[in-house]
């Protein structure tokens, strides 16, 4: 086949790859000004978004569509073992990944322009995103895992890219060790599955279903695989690294880790645990069964997932409850949010997948935004503790309002996307009835508890008197004690724009969810029906 027909599905990936190479090349050429490298990153991600959205059938950009609609969600010929397959849900996830990357890149352009290693950062950002995009179209286990590793390795380096920040390096170390461990686990699991099926192709694995020589291998294989992927999604008890890493990493990197790479894990779960093994009735009611039959693993896997989901959200909340540091609080909260997403995977029906995907989108926006705000506030010279944010809401009304909006969205307050995503997700859970109802109850109660620590931040920002002297103002004072003043009251154009955009999207999708919910649900139905 011609190169173009081969390359067509990879248009966004190619763009990103080009961007990465360009940045590294420039780095070699000592061209490291943030305006340039950051510009490239922003442009690449933006272009990627355009391409993906076009492929999703977004009319205004139709001319950019590179994949014939027929190829999307198409089942391969029986016996064929394609390495990749474009599914609409995959495209949705690609869009989400690119969105997160775009915002991070945009926000990061406001860092001191002569910062050391900035260009590396942008290059790695694009590289990691590239890996995520590949995950979203994988249909082969090894392909999937390798793609994940691309991202992982890139993000190890991102965490430590400054090379001078002890916290960053420590974080990278932890990240790396746990990451390596889970890599081992997932590959080991994959190897066992290969043993059981003689193939690593997800389609074939699904086709084979229960007709397999060594069911025990299958059980062990999926078990190890689960452990390996759980690391990415930060499920309890595979979560411990996340908090330290988000905490220690540079703020913008945390934003990307929380908002981006974690979501990749979610989609990997979709592929490995839903796509291949899903049997679905007409209305998309869950008929989830991992090898219903010999070992009756399906329901029991569901149960395990459910237990872990509840565990994850509860532990995450409990740990966030009294957390004093802003970033760690956000980290814990994103762990608990992962628990919500797992609800969708547990149920496995199309509505639930849709809900989970929406939750992924919501979380990508909210967490990226929140961490960007944190990095902006830190740039203003405000400390890392929640109590350092005292009076911020009244001193910097707009910034405060944006942050408040994100927190309220995380807490699931109406007219924000956070509310809609939870609503849809839990609706799906209740609709599935049976013991899934209790998943919904657990999730809702957790979200109720979570309100406490978000409200605590609001309380600090709005009700508590601001400290004197107020660092939040120092940053804005030209020639003040703080760092050199940036435009937009010390935020810088990039950050300001990113934060404003995210806030806008949160409200937009909160008021008219159909915008995103429609495509996502359709994609979910296709995904379930086509089985990746």
């Amino acid at each position, binding site marked *: 086949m011609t190169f173009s027909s081969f390359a067509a599905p990879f248009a966004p990936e190619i763009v990103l790859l080009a961007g990465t190479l360009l940045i590294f090349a420039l780095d070699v050429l000592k061209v490291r000004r943030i305006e340039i490298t950051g510009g490239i990153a922003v442009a690449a991600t933006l272009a990627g978004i355009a391409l993906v959205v076009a492929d999703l059938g977004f009319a205004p950009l139709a001319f950019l569509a590179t994949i014939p609609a027929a190829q999307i969600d198409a089942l391969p010929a029986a016996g064929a073992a394609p390495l990749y397959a474009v599914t609409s849900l995959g495209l949705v996830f690609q869009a989400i990944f690119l969105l997160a990357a775009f915002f991070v890149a945009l926000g990061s352009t406001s860092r001191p322009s002569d910062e050391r290693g900035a260009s590396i950062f942008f290059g790695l950002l694009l590289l990691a995103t590239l890996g995520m995009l590949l995950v979203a179209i994988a249909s082969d286990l090894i392909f999937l895992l390798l793609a994940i590793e691309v991202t992982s390795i890139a993000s190890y380096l991102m965490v430590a890219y400054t090379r001078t920040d002890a916290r960053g390096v420590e974080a990278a170390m932890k990240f790396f060790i746990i990451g390596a461990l889970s890599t081992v686990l997932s590959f080991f699991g994959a190897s066992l599955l290969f043993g059981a099926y003689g193939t690593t192709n997800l389609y074939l694995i699904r086709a084979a279903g229960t007709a397999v020589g060594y069911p025990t291998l299958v059980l062990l294989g999926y078990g190890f695989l689960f452990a390996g992927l759980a690391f990415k999604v930060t499920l309890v008890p595979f979560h411990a690294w996340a908090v330290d890493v988000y905490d220690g990493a540079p703020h913008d990197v945390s934003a990307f880790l929380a908002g981006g790479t974690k979501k990749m894990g979610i989609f990997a779960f979709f592929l490995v645990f839903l796509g291949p093994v899903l049997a679905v009735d007409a*209305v998309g009611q869950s008929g989830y069964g991992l090898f219903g039959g010999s070992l009756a693993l399906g329901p029991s896997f569901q149960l395990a997932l459910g237990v872990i989901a509840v565990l994850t959200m509860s532990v995450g909340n409990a740990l966030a409850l009294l957390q004093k540091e802003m970033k760690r609080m956000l980290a814990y909260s994103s762990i608990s949010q992962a628990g919500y997403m797992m609800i969708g995977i547990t149920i496995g029906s199309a509505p639930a997948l849709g809900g989970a995907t929406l939750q992924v989108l919501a979380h990508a926006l909210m967490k990226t935004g929140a961490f960007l705000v944190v990095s902006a506030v830190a740039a203003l010279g405000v400390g890392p503790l929640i109590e350092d944010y005292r009076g911020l809401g009244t001193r910097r009304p707009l910034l405060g309002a944006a942050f408040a909006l994100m927190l309220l969205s995380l807490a699931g307050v109406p007219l924000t996307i956070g509310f809609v995503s939870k609503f849809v997700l839990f609706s799906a859970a209740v609709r599935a009835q049976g013991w899934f109802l209790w998943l919904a109850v657990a999730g*809702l109660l957790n979200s109720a508890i979570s309100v406490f620590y978000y409200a605590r931040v609001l309380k600090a920002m709005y*009700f508590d008197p601001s400290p004197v002297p107020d660092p939040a103002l120092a940053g804005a004072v030209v020639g003040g004690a703080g760092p050199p003043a940036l435009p937009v009251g010390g935020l810088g154009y990039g950050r300001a724009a990113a934060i404003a955009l995210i806030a806008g999207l949160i409200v937009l999708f909160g008021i008219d969810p159909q915008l995103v919910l429609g495509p996502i649900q359709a994609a979910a139905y296709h995904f379930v029906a086509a089985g990746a």
Partner: protein
Amino acid sequence: MLPLISIVLATLALGTVGTFAAGTRARWVALGTSALFLAEVGLLFAGFTGWPGYSGTLVPGFSYTETHPWISLAWMHIDYAVGVDGISLIFVLLTAILQIATVVYSWGETQRPAGYFGLVMLTCLGCVGVFVALDILLFFLFWELVLVPMFFLIGYWGGPNRRYAALKFFIYTHVASIVMLVGLLALVFYSGATSFDFASVYAAARGLAPVVQTFLFLALFFGFAVKFPIVPFHTWLPDAHVEAPTGGSVLLAGLLLKLGGYGLIRWAVEVLPSGLHSVQPLLFLIAFLSIFWGSVLSLAQRDLKRLVAYSSINHMGIVLLAIALDSSLGLLAAVLLMFAHGVVSGLLFMASGSVHHQYGTRDIASLGGITPGAPALSTMIMAGGLASLGLPALIGFPAEFTAFLATWNGLGYWVLIPLSVLVVTAAFYLWMMQRMLFGETKGGPPDAHGLPWYESAGMGLLVALTVLFGVLPSLLVNVIVNSPIKGWPGT
């Protein structure tokens, strides 16, 4: 015909934004919005069946209904569906009244007026939304929306312990509404309805097995009960009231508590009849407990606001009792009572606010004989107290009379419990007046400027309404009974 209700909501939304933006002139924008809102409510009434001057062609039941698809998926349809029947219309009216009264009363608010008035607008928007929503998601959305502005009102403009009170209020009520949400979702999906709008849920719920209905009812009831609030889920109320700024207290007691009652009537009692039937004894028990508890506790309070807060618990207990009776008269009584309590408690909270402004304290024991110093104020307090203890020709009387009549009719001699509590209620109000208004003057002279005109204006409005509807309750009744409930003309 004009989409009046959307216009109302739009008015409030724009008003909110405008107020936030208006800076120091916020109060004018707020006043304008409230006035406009009131006018639109007037229009709503003018075109509503059963209203004296009505000469239209609307059929009774839900009027001014609008439906626009909002979220539509293969497995759930959510509409922007609004409309009013007599009951909701009454509550919309209440909202309009309290909003304008609050705005006028708080005319002198100097601390970040834009934020203050904006939040007041937002609260009212949320309440109106709850009252007119005919779709579960829309209902819940507004329901939750109300929490946020109130949280900020209490937390920023409140008293010394405001932070704790704000958090407590927010989380307590939020947990409750979460449970309620489970109930609502289960209501939809267990009844097999795919659409969230009232009509289809109402129809589908008929098919539910009694036991399921019971559980759903309990879940919903918990959500509403905390808002009511009923004993033992009431402890957020005194704290919230004591700490909230006067305007906040007024809206809190006048509107937020009503959300619970309204929700119970609209989404539980109406939709889950056999559920109600099976938990009726429990409801009666809780109601009696609340009535008794609230009244007796008021007797023990030293802080004027706390006293009024507990008296609210007592009154809402009567409301719950009336609703639980599941008779048309009971329903009528419940709505009347809620309206009455909205106006009266608003008045009383304004009064206690003024007392605080004038004397720097609300501690009844350390006040005394304030009548010579502030005759107008003490008149307001007396009016509020007497209305609240059910004096005829004031709004409380027709409500309580019908309520107790219905109780007698439904429960026979059990009515003695609420009736005898009436004496206690009278006792604590009279005692409060005796200690605070009469006797030798204590607690220093009133504030030099005396009662500001806007405060007396705000209270005066409410007093006037108390008398008007007390003398002519049929003005309300004729509207209320035009609802598609209990085989009333609306059906």
